[in-house]
């Protein structure tokens, strides 16, 4: 039988990477000074599994590397080694290294061999050896079979005297003899002298002795191997009878293992030269298919829902009795059925959406390590508190929120939390706290990043903004507006630029990324007490809350989250700049007006601008006003991509199908805002109408 073991590689990679995550978080919690046996055991088990798997599946390099880790961890586990800061650091580096190694094997790439050798060296230094003197079992064991030259047929006399309790281990003499019989000619002679009289007979005890004669080409080692599992529950003597073997023959007690006697499994493809094995990395691996793990209960729920749907369908089917005898009773039933169908559909939709939902711990789990590394680097004491890790979030949103969160946490540690001396001077605990929290609120997920650091210095932000000309010299700004300045491109209040953060690139990007996900970010801060960033994100990108608007004869959808307000237009507030671009005076600011009828080439449109409504939208930090005919309803819409079926259209982010079957386009707020900030004659609309 031959089995291609490469089919198990994908699973091995996945579980190894998971194992590394377990090791990492375990190591980080060891670091906090709580030496917990269960944690060390869990770390050890992960290393142990990776080593076992990598050796089995032929990743020799990984196996050798993990061996050193395993040995270190084993010593810690057994209490032979102190868990020191130094060893934890080395092990953390080893985890990184291993992660890279496994990724390289998976993707067929290469990795930094030098780094691996260095980390391995560090581990070996900890182990107190120079390395190389403890080769591990990564290729098959090669002992057990006698030398090739030893081919002569010989007869062996085997005295096999089982102890009474041999059967208790699940071993069976008959099976041993069957195995022996495959090696050559076997004669079995049973000695039942020790058999007790029947009343005392215990069927669970072994009372028989055997004397076996085996004529075989196999050597004594091979025979001994058969009895390997029973060697301490029997007395065994093996004697060579004929022809006279070389000097080493003679009675051998098997009770002591000959040195280096390993279970002799030698399979095809497990030759002694492990370096000669073709390295698996040479084979280009298919890139990881985007798969997610879905818990069984979600699937079960889904199947339940489909069951419900089928029941509703058959109930409705019963109503189909022709129209002749359609009476009011049936209408009532039909109405009930429809209500049920609506509920089923909604629940089914929710269940399907839940499949894409993963706990946010997938993102949060990388932060303990990051905070650990940063706090070491910056010489600050920081306690990271995570909560709400089980809050679920769409996979796509999850992938995109990682980087912004990294940035915010870095900022919190670099700028927020003060150095220990400064904290003590300010009467705060020496160790700063960064709290990362997630929870569901309405149809959103809220992520909070809170630190008990210095907070924002409003004066400093204002001064900086004035210096850069972002704010008028004596303008009075509300707190929100001041904090908003932080999100301006190139804005940083850090006195010194470190390589952690402080170049002022980032906060604008953070906000842009969050807005691209249809979310928003808010700041609240108290000087000297700390800062909280609050991020709100939609649970999924597949559905959005939309405001339906009428433009001419068409219905369009504006994402509700981007709408600031909607108002009736007062003609005296409309001005045109340079005779072309229209602006609307909204309290104390001027916002560009977008004539949607022109942009989307829709017939109709209000004869006078004051007949329409102005929907004020905000995207990319700027506002614009959409001129529409009417506001219709608000509803959740399912987003269908235009690009997959058609092509990208400026100002349109997608489409949806409304309840009556018509297609409505969803407006791309960012795109429209950008459009409004360009000179009118560059606009895409072929027909630029004059001011009404």
């Amino acid at each position, binding site marked *: *039988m*031959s*089995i291609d*073991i490469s*089919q*198990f*590689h994908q*699973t*091995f990679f*996945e*579980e190894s990477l998971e194992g590394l995550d377990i090791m990492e978080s375990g190591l980080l919690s060891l670091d906090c000074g709580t030496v917990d046996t269960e944690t060390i055991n*869990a770390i*050890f*088990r992960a290393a*142990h*599994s990776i*080593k*076992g*798997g990598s*050796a*089995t*599946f032929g990743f020799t390099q990984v*196996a050798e590397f993990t061996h050193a880790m395993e040995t270190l961890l084993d010593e810690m586990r057994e209490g032979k080694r102190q868990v020191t800061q130094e060893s934890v650091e080395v092990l953390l580096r080893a985890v990184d290294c291993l992660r890279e190694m496994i990724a390289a094997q998976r993707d067929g790439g290469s990795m930094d061999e030098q780094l691996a050798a260095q980390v391995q060296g560090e581990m070996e230094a900890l182990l107190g050896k120079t390395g190389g003197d403890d080769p591990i*079992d*990564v*290729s*098959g*064991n090669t002992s057990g079979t006698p030398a090739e030259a030893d081919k002569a047929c010989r007869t062996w006399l085997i005295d096999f005297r089982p102890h009474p309790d041999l*059967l*208790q*281990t*699940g*071993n*069976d003499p*008959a*099976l041993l003899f069957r*195995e022996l019989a495959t090696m050559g000619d076997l004669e079995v002679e049973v000695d039942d002298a020790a058999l007790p009289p029947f009343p005392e007979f215990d069927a*669970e005890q072994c009372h028989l002795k055997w004397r076996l004669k085996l004529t075989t080409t196999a050597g004594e080692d091979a025979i001994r191997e*058969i009895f*390997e*599992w029973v060697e*301490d529950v029997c007395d065994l003597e093996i004697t060579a009878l004929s022809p006279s073997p070389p000097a080493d023959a003679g009675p051998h007690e098997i009770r002591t*293992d000959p040195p280096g006697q*390993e*279970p002799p*499994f030698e*399979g*095809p*493809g*497990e030759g002694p030269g492990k370096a000669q094995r073709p390295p698996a990395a040479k084979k280009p691996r298919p890139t990881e298919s985007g798969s997610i793990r879905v818990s069984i209960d979600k699937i079960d729920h889904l199947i339940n829902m489909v069951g419900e749907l089928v029941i509703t369908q058959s109930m409705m089917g019963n109503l189909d009795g022709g129209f002749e005898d359609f009476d009011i009773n049936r209408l009532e039933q039909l109405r009930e059925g429809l209500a049920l169908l609506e509920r089923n559909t909604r629940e089914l939709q929710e269940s399907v959406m839940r499949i894409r939902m993963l706990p946010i711990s997938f993102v949060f789990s990388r932060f303990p390590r990051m905070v650990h590394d940063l706090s070491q680097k910056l010489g600050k004491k920081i306690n990271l508190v995570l909560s709400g890790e089980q809050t679920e979030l769409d996979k796509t949103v999850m992938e995109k929120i990682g980087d912004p969160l990294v940035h915010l946490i870095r900022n919190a540690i670099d700028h927020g939390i003060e150095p220990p001396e400064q904290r003590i001077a300010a009467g705060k605990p020496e160790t700063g706290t960064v709290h990362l929290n997630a929870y569901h609120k309405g149809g959103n997920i809220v992520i909070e990043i809170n630190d008990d650091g210095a907070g924002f210095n409003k004066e400093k932000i204002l001064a900086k903004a004035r210096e850069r000309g972002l704010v008028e010299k004596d303008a009075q700004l509300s707190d929100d507006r001041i904090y908003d300045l932080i999100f301006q491109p190139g804005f940083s209040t850090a006195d010194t630029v470190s390589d952690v953060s402080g170049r002022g690139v980032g906060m604008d990007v953070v906000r842009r990324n969050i807005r691209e996900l249809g979310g928003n970010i808010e700041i609240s801060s108290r000087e000297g007490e700390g800062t909280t960033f609050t991020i709100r994100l939609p649970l999924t990108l597949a559905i959005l809350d939309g405001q339906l608007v009428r433009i001419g004869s068409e219905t369009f959808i504006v994402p509700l989250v981007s709408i600031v307000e909607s108002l009736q237009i007062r003609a005296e507030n409309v001005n045109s700049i340079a005779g072309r671009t229209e602006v609307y005076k909204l309290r104390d600011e001027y916002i560009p007006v977008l004539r949607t009828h022109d942009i989307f080439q829709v017939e109709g449109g209000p004869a006078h601008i004051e007949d329409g409504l102005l929907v004020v939208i905000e995207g990319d930090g700027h506002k614009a006003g959409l001129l529409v005919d009417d506001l219709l309803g608000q509803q959740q819409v399912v987003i269908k991509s235009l690009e997959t079926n058609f092509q990208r259209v400026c100002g349109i982010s997608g489409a949806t199908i409304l309840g009556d079957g018509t297609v409505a386009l969803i407006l791309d707020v960012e795109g429209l805002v950008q459009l409004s900030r360009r000179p009118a004659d560059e606009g895409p609309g072929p027909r630029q109408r004059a001011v009404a």
Partner: protein
Amino acid sequence: MASILAVDDSASMRQMVTFALQKAGHEVVEAADGEQALALAKTRKVNLVITDVNMPKMDGITLIRELRTLPDYRFTPILMLTTESAPEKKQQGKAAGATGWLVKPFNPDQLIATISKVLG
């Protein structure tokens, strides 16, 4: 054809063991740790148990010890899979009642050859 309980916390190992055993015509039930395995063993009788040693919740040695206390498993062959060629692990296993062992790394052919030694 025998029914075999395969116990390992590593999914890839379990996958390989199961695949190889099924290909050899056996029926396989899987468990990810000793606790699971013990619960499974109590609900059905298998002809052979193959278990890893290092596992969360309940390790392989404890599992073997527990299985041997069950009337149905007093004489059932139990093999342990281990990377630890260290004699003390084998001794512990044997003391707990293991029939034999299989040292990792092994390949599917070795696995099949080994189980044929204990299946009647």
